[in-house]
């Protein structure tokens, strides 16, 4: 799943950009944004974010 960035919580520190292997994160108006075309859904950015502004949605509910 493509991570979701909370623009309000993001401090614009840029740590997520530095760990993103395909360089899919850009900084816009002081907060990080994911270019979905290049995101490979590795989750490195979410693990790196110190203020937990990046979350990985996970499929919910039981289907069996």
């Amino acid at each position, binding site marked *: *799943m493509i991570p979701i960035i909370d623009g309000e919580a993001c401090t614009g520190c840029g740590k997520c*950009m*530095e*760990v*993103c*292997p*395909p*360089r899919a994160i850009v900084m816009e108006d002081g907060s990080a944004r994911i270019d979905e075309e*290049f995101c*490979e*859904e*590795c*989750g*490195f950015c*979410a*693990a790196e974010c110190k203020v937990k502004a990046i979350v*990985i949605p*996970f*499929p*919910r*509910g*039981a*289907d*069996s």
Partner: protein
Amino acid sequence: MRYPHIFSSGRINTLATKNRIKYAATETNFNTPDGFVTEREVAYMEAQARGGAAIVTTQGAYPDALGEGKGFRGTMSIAHDRFIPGLARIAEVIKRNGALAALQILHCGREGGVDLDYCLMPTVVPQRLSYFKPPREITTAEIKQAVKDHAAAARRAIDAGFDMIELSGIVGYLISTFISRYTNKRQDEYGGETVEERCRLMKEILGAIKAETGDTFPVGIRLCGAELLDDRGGNTLEESIESFRIAEKAGADYVSVTVGWHESSSSVITRDVPMGRWLWVAERVKKAVTVPVMMAFRLFLPEIPEKAIADGVMDFWEACRPMIADPDLPNKAAREKISTVVPCIACNLCFSRLYYHQPIMCTVRPSLGREGDEAWGHYGFARAREKKRIGVVGGGPAGLQIAAVAAERGHDVTLWERQAVFGGSILLASRVDDGEEELLRPIAYLEERCREAGVTLVPATTCTPDLLQGMNLGVLVLAEGSLFGPCVGSGHLTPDEIIGEKKRPGKSVLIAGGDGVGLAVVVYLLRTGDHHIILIEESGRLGRDVSPFYLWRYLQMFKQRGVEVVTRATLEGWDDGKASVASAKGERSFEVDDVVIASRLAQPSAREAFASSAAEVFLIGDAKRPRRLHNAIHEAYRLGMRV
């Protein structure tokens, strides 16, 4: 027959097996966060069962209601009867496809509690891996409960229709932390100076499961044969081997031999470890027990387990990563069509994703996790509605992958490669370090797949817009890879000159670019000569695109060999033996013999040059944006699905 021992029948307790191959358990993160089995998991397990292994093992299901044993967010649960219907679907698809269904019970212990704010350990022992939750000592009452949970899980596995049960006590999971003297310093009856005493939890769990299943139902266990924790006071080799003997005495019907813990400070499953490297551990266990002995761990090519079984080193070949990459490996080995096997390259993309709460992916098999979706062509592609003439420029992984998929969908595909051999940047990567020649296996496989699908492969030919005139192409795919740059000054070297053409730089070298390519040049130079190396990187981090399974070893090597690393720095000029570098700490100058430009640039202008060569023109792989191998292969595969 090439592999008579692999394809001879075997026996585990009362069950006969059709061959000696077992798909070993792996987590997928495909299941729901509340522990229910998903369609995606069932389809994946069905693919494994259809592949021809005698035994197919599920991922480890956690047995406790709180999820203290749950190591990954998408792990399935066996902690309540409500999970039985989903588990039963997995047992059903495995058995329907002619394999024995084994359910693994896995309490992750100190690697567990993924949704909690703690994990359980026999004794609180500090550790450094950031993934782990803060440890708490498990109480005696909780140990007794864990034994009951395992027995109840075993009963549910039988109710769900499984043929066998497997326990996992490896790499730092609950059972292994009790067995190891590194993590078990308890003073009560679950600890002790002897391995026999520390195996008490394992014995109680095996005993409780056996009491639930009866004597004739096969129950196996995975244990660690060599912890590789000497620097942390882990078990001796003799103690580890003894734990297998104790497991047999406690009722285990087979044992699976594993090597290393997650914090072992040496390579265990990466390419620098030669295939078959750990068979000596299986051999030691084989001499200690009478029940069947199994092993996975770098046994990628069937001739290696074939010989090991023939030599009496082990009894069953467990395949984990090789069957993630190609579930059909057993069938292909049986038909002796090894060149058609999708080859695992031990990149560990699959495992490393688990720790970031993402579903597993496979560099070489994009259809992983999409086995149930026909569009992804796991069992073969449907033909495209309209047959097109397709040209592909570049015979690296991206070019070969799209050519194969497009041709399999019925298109008429021609591929041009500038060099006499296919592989593109992989040709360089395969020469960097020990074991890296394994990276050529996917290239050989893709070439074979292209040939089988009828792709016209044209090596040693530079494709130009002129060459394409009058070909009436419907689609042109540009996959020529990246260029090295940006260049500063003149007279610098590039990675293809150093690794490909073997040009030797002078004694002191500055390498600009600290991504995988720059690191590869450093590794190559350090292995083949004595250099003083300065590595500069624009960002604050080296090797952002290098797997953590490999990166730690490279960085360790750089430290030992005195590589000077300067981050947040860019090369501004290179003239007369002086490299000027702008860094966060101001302008710096380095006197060096040579400069290597190891950063990469996309080739977007190729699209303009070929704009009128076909009705549709696509740019893929490193030519679009320099990235990793799986990006190139997956992007190409996905484009192949839709052209």
